[in-house]
């Protein structure tokens, strides 16, 4: 009996094309070392230990007087906020006439295991704020915190409200018990004392594990299938590789800082209950009384909206704005949506509250 093949020839074509793309990839794709993530020109204006304060060169003739300092997250590095000229958070703000600084926390080594919240908030962050105030001859600056960088910036703002004119919290990690993400489930069950006592700093490998369980099949399979399918699309490949390089660059987190972060935010949830202390100083969210803009991504699977939004309701400010965007954690800061919607709204809000 003659068997009839039912395989669509297009399927074979697809398979052959895909295999060809996989074979061609090494010729078409740049090596990670060839990709430079620092897009927008800047100067390193201050270094404290391993932290660096970056000052971006202006892109407009005239700038608004109140400078903006960005406190980036503890996970991965600040490059995502300036990942590509077309998707750069920093560049967009510069084009809107803002004077932008970025705090790079640096790459902690074994000897930094005792660095804690106090060092980051009252040391590096305060050092950066004081430098900017002096340099710009202003008494107050605008401060933006992203993700865990917003946890630090929030604590800073409660302790030094006299230095912050406007506060922007972008996907802030605030209410750990309300966080519905996988990361929070792992954090809640972690013996963090034992971890820090045994291995010191939180190693990047553990962070990679935490990321690998977030949408594992979409991120682990579909993403790479799409990459090989689009290997001829230079723009797509460039953008993909930049983000991949950024994802693979996660510095360790200092042990003591990590310990307090996991305990106070995810396990005991002290920050939102106004029960957190940093070097014996009380972190009272009601002390945030300046204008505050909270940005939340509805599809955020790293910091759920339920974890971020309580900040808006807990602060003492009368001038407060909460915006929700139909995107994810990274999409909110480095996507076409962020360029078209998130940044223009932020710029307008900031402009109305900055010294001209």
């Amino acid at each position, binding site marked *: 009996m003659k068997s009839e093949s039912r395989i*669509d020839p*297009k399927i074979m074509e697809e398979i052959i094309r895909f295999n060809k793309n996989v074979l061609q990839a090494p010729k078409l794709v740049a090596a990670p070392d060839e990709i430079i993530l620092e897009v927008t020109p800047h100067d390193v204006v201050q270094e404290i230990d391993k932290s660096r304060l970056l000052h971006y060169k202006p892109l407009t003739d005239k700038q608004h007087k109140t400078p903006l300092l960005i406190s980036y997250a503890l996970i991965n590095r600040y490059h995502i906020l300036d990942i590509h000229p077309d998707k750069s958070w920093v560049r967009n703000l510069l084009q809107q006439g803002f004077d932008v600084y970025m705090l790079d926390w640096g790459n902690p080594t074994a000897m930094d295991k005792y660095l804690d919240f106090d060092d980051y908030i009252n040391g590096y962050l305060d050092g950066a704020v004081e430098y900017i105030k002096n340099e710009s001859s202003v008494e107050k600056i605008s401060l933006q915190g992203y993700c865990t960088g917003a946890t630090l910036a929030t604590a800073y703002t409660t302790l030094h409200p006299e230095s912050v004119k406007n506060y922007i919290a972008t996907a802030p990690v605030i209410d750990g018990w309300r966080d519905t993400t996988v990361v929070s*489930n792992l954090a809640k069950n972690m013996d963090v004392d034992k*971890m820090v006592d045994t291995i010191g700093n939180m190693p990047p490998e553990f962070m990679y594990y935490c990321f690998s369980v977030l949408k594992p099949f979409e991120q682990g399979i579909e993403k790479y299938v799409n990459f090989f399918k689009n290997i001829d699309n230079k723009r797509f490949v460039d953008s993909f590789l930049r983000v991949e390089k950024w994802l693979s660059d996660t510095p360790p987190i200092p042990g003591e800082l990590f310990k307090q972060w996991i305990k106070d935010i995810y396990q005991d949830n002290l920050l939102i209950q106004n029960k957190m202390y940093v070097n014996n100083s009380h972190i009272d969210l009601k002390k945030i009384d300046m204008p505050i803009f909270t940005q939340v991504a509805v599809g955020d699977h790293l910091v759920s909206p339920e974890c971020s939004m309580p900040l808006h309701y807990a602060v003492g400010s009368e001038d407060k704005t909460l915006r929700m965007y139909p995107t994810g954690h990274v999409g909110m800061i480095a996507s076409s949506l962020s360029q078209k919607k998130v940044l223009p709204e932020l710029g307008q809000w900031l402009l109305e509250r900055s010294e001209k």
Partner: protein
Amino acid sequence: MSSKPQALASTGPMRSFAANSKKVATELIEINESLLEFNKFLTEYYKQLAETWNEAQKKVNLKAPEVPQDVEQIEAFKRIWIDIFDNDFTELFDSKKFGENYGKLVSQELELTKHWNNITNVILQSANLPSKEEIDEVYKELHDLKKRVIKLEIEAKKKKVAKNEK
């Protein structure tokens, strides 16, 4: 372990060697015990993954029973497969049972690391090198000193400003 033959061999420079081998042997025995516990949680970890995989595959089979015949059908099948697997695995990773087992698994892994650190410390000390704890003490001391210096610098700065204002 401190038997007579060992004690006899422990004269002079060999004394510390005998004491060290006793410490290393104790650690190795404890490593085996920790390894048993670690394997228990690792087995549960893989069991949870395998069960979730099987359940997700059953759901895919129910939703897409036909073998895809063309490119569009393959795309649709892939979408269904990824969505169901992502949903089911996210549900697992979010669950209490996964979180608890994973926490215990990591804890046992740390226990193993601790024993390995202890063995390393014995070797370091036998070579007259500082142990991990001693290096940690130096790190702590450095950290505290830096803090004190910063505090003093701030105070000095304030005094200077106050003096200039006068």
